[in-house]
Structures are given as C-alpha cells and as structure tokens.
C-alpha cells in the first residue's frame, strides 16, 4: 500500500487516508525522501485527519521523517491530528517536541509559507 504524494509548487502535500502499519509507514518514509530529492521541495505538509490510531513505532517513524526532511532542507508540518490520537501520544510520552503542527491543511500551508518566506 503506497501513500500518494502530491506536488504543489514548492511543497509536497500528503494526506494519509489509510490506517498505517509498520510496512506502509517505512515505505512512506522512503517515498517522501525520494520525492523531496527529486522535486527539490522546500516544504511538506502531512495531513493526519483520517488517521484514528497511531502507535509508538509509527509516531517514531513520523518524527524521523520530519528530522530527515529537515536534513534535506524541507520543513515539515503535521496537520489534523485528532484529539484521540493526541491523547494517546501524550499518554505514551511522545510529544513530538520539535515538530511543527497545525489544525488543518489550510493552516498548515499558511504556516509553511510564513516560515519559509518570512
């Protein structure tokens, strides 16, 4: 199962609409990094609105993707994290401290734009 990655000008848009498992999320990590390399993107928005469950491994990989993208010069914003997901993550002690977050795709894009241009 591969997650589609859309290119929009300088950004990559990714909406995760399947329940993530270990295999999918690793494949996803690889795809995102390749795509950043290929397109020379400056920003990435990962939208988690339809994700209802995130375990510690998936959270770790998502955090890794953010760090790796940063190394490649692309800023990542996670958007649309559901309350239930946020509560589980906090309960597990995962705070994703250095990761930028936004309420939804729209605000995520605004945030990226502000940070990259301003």
């Amino acid at each position: 199962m591969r997650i589609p990655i859309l290119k929009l000008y300088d950004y990559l848009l990714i909406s995760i609409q399947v329940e993530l498992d270990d295999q999918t999320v690793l494949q996803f990590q690889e795809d995102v990094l390749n795509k950043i390399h290929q397109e020379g993107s400056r920003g990435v928005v990962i939208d988690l609105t339809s994700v209802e469950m995130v375990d510690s491994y998936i959270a770790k990989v998502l955090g890794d993707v953010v760090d790796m993208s940063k190394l490649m010069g692309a800023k990542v914003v996670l958007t649309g994290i559901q309350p239930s997901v946020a509560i589980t993550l906090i309960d597990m002690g995962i705070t994703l401290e250095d990761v930028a977050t936004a309420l939804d795709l729209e605000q995520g894009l605004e945030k990226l734009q502000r940070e990259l241009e301003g």
Partner: protein
Amino acid sequence: MHPSIKESILEKKDEIVEQWLEEIEQFRYEDYLQNISDSVYRSTNREFVDKIFETVDLCSDDVYERISQYSERLIQLGWPLNYITRGLQSFRQITVETLSNTGDNYCYDIEFYQEIESWIDNLINALVSDYSGSWENTVFSQKMALKELSAPLIPVFDEICVMPLIGTIDSERAKLIMENLLEGVIENRAQVVLIDITGVPVVDTMVAHHIIQAAEAVRLVGAECILVGIRPEIAQTVVNLGIDLGKFSTKSTLKKGMATALKMTDREIVDLASK
C-alpha cells in the same frame, strides 16, 4: 402480627403515646431541632406516632407505601434522620416495657419480642431507605452539575479561546479538561488557547502534570497554549517543586495572555480615541 399482641398494643396505645411524647421531648435539645417551634415539633411528633400505629396491622409492602409519603415530607422539611431512628428506638423500648408491665403471660414469649422487633425494623428500613435514596439523588445531581461546570471552552475572538478552570483538579476532571480542550480547539478552529488557573487553589505536581499534558496535546492538534492566572504563591510552589513549565508560555493575568494571543495571531487592540 398475632391478633392478641396487636390488640393489647392498641389497648395500651394512649399510655405508650404519652410516654413516647415525653421521651422524644428530651432529645430535642441534643439534636439539630432547637430552632423548630414547639407547636410544629409537637404536631410532627403526634403525626409520627399516629403513622406508627397505622402500620401496626399492615404487611411490609404496605408499610413502605404508607410511610413513603410521610417520609418524603419529612425529607423536604429537612428533619434529621437521627430524629426518626431515635424516635423509633425509644418507641420500641417503651412499647415492650409497657406491655411487659401488664403481666400477661404472652409477654415473656420470644415470639412477642420478635413481632414488635420486626414491626419497628420494617418502619426503620422504609424510612432509612427513603432518606438515603434522596441523599443519593442529591449527590448524583450535584455531581452532574459539577461535571457540566468543570471545563467550559469559550471562544472569545476568531482563533482565540479561553478555558477558565475553577476548583480542585483531580484525574477524572483532568481527563475531561483534556477532551473538551482538544475537541473545542478543532471545533472553533482555534490557534491559541488560554488556560486560566486563577481559580485553582493548589497546583501540585499532579495538577501541573495534567496541565502540561493538556498543553502538549493541544500543540499536537495544531494550536498553542498559554497558561494564565499564575498567582505568586502558585509560581512559588511550581518552582519549589521543580516543575518545568518552560515549554509553553505563561502569563500572570488573562489580560496579558490575551494581548500575547492577539499578537500571535497578528492582531492587536487599538484605542480608537487616540487616533
């Protein structure tokens, strides 16, 4: 009840009532009944003893029915349960004493005591269960009221919400706060949430932990948290306990927090007169 016992109880009714009224007059001063006027106290006593005699030839189901109306009124008027139980206890004592003084043979039967015991016990059960039922109702409705009041999220400007917290925070309430906070943030599309702890009397490690968790969860769903209303004594306890609140901004008053929140969303309040 055995008809002969019932008969002799009814025969001695006046005597028992006289003694009982005297007895109950005595513990009026020990209970919380001082501020009830004499006439009300007497009439209630009289009604009570009449009710007791009414139930003498009823089976237990009928007793419950008969007594519940009366107990409902007592509960509404706020008569203490103590009055009921002590009244019934002394009633039992007086009845047994009076009847055993008559010298009839059956008075020494164990059956005689059992009959009277079960009669009075039934009454006590009915009254106590009515009382405790009404208390449970009260506790339940107050709990619900408390829950409703416990964690409101108020949208004040576009993208800015305030959650005022008042009273002690326990784990159950903290969970509720977290849920309301996150759902409210999404519903109101808030960018900044101000958590006002002016009304929280004590901030210990547990409370601080819950607040920090809530703030981090808010950040995950894509908004910012500002903790406002930090009183001097709270600042002292937080630092003395070694709690690190450095991860999110804190302000002393809601006013200052609001100014910060407006700045974070690229707005400010302008005085029109100065223009």
